[in-house]
């Protein structure tokens, strides 16, 4: 493995770690809202790291731009959806879990 392949592997493995952690949170966390935290935050970082890992290997700047664009679009979509899902749940009387 050359240097760029190694960097790319570290970043992508790091990204996978956060996807797995987010999924564990989704399964273990006690209620609707805490699960949303796990999904949005861990996946945002996980995807960012995977995209960074792929960008290191990209053959052109156009590809890098495209990857970053995809990350930004997913980020915008997931933040907006997270808010809409949380608001709908709250307004329909979903009670947050408390200690």
């Amino acid at each position, binding site marked *: 493995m050359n240097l760029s392949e190694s960097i790319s592997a570290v970043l992508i493995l790091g990204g996978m770690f956060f996807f797995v952690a987010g999924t564990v949170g989704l399964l273990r966390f006690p209620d609707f809202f805490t699960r949303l*935290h796990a999904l949005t935050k861990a996946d945002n970082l996980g995807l960012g790291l995977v995209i960074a890992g792929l960008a290191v290997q990209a053959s052109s700047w156009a590809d890098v731009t495209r990857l970053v664009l995809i990350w930004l679009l997913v980020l915008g979509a997931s933040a907006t959806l997270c808010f809409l899902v*949380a608001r709908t749940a709250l307004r329909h009387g979903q009670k947050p879990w408390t200690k």
Partner: protein
Amino acid sequence: MSLPCTPTDQPSLVPRKQTAGEALLWIITLGLLWTAINPGDLHSWLVGIPVVALASAAALRLHSPVPRRYSLLGAMRLATFFVAQSFRGGWDVAKRALSPAMPLNPAMLNYPLRLRDELAQVLLVNLNSLLPGTLSADLANGVVTIHVLDAGPETFADMQTLEERVAGLFSIPLGTEKDIRA
């Protein structure tokens, strides 16, 4: 860096007249965005044409007519803060999820915004969900309802910094909480 700005706290609920030029601008911009993601793929327009049309219509309908000034320095400061906080936020939630004890002390809190500009508020609400431990659950009358993973005295500190950074992007001054409630 911050210049005086027209007050932008008037809700823009009245549908305004749209010009054909504005519509064309959205169609071209979003069309270019589609091409950037699917370069040289003619078949993709089967989905692309309806998507660009719908997105342009939504943009025209939702876009508020308030003139805004963006600060490049403000954008860079916000981006830096956002990336750093994304790492902290992802790490924080991963640690909680993987820890056997699973430390959680959630609460639903109200945060009265000092930002009054609608676009700035929406941006803040979206970015907030990616900060460590906070998730926006509602926005009404300048108050964000926030779900926090670990309620404590430090809960709003990041939120305040985020609000300042978002205000910096738009070069707008922050009001006080009193102004909003008045």
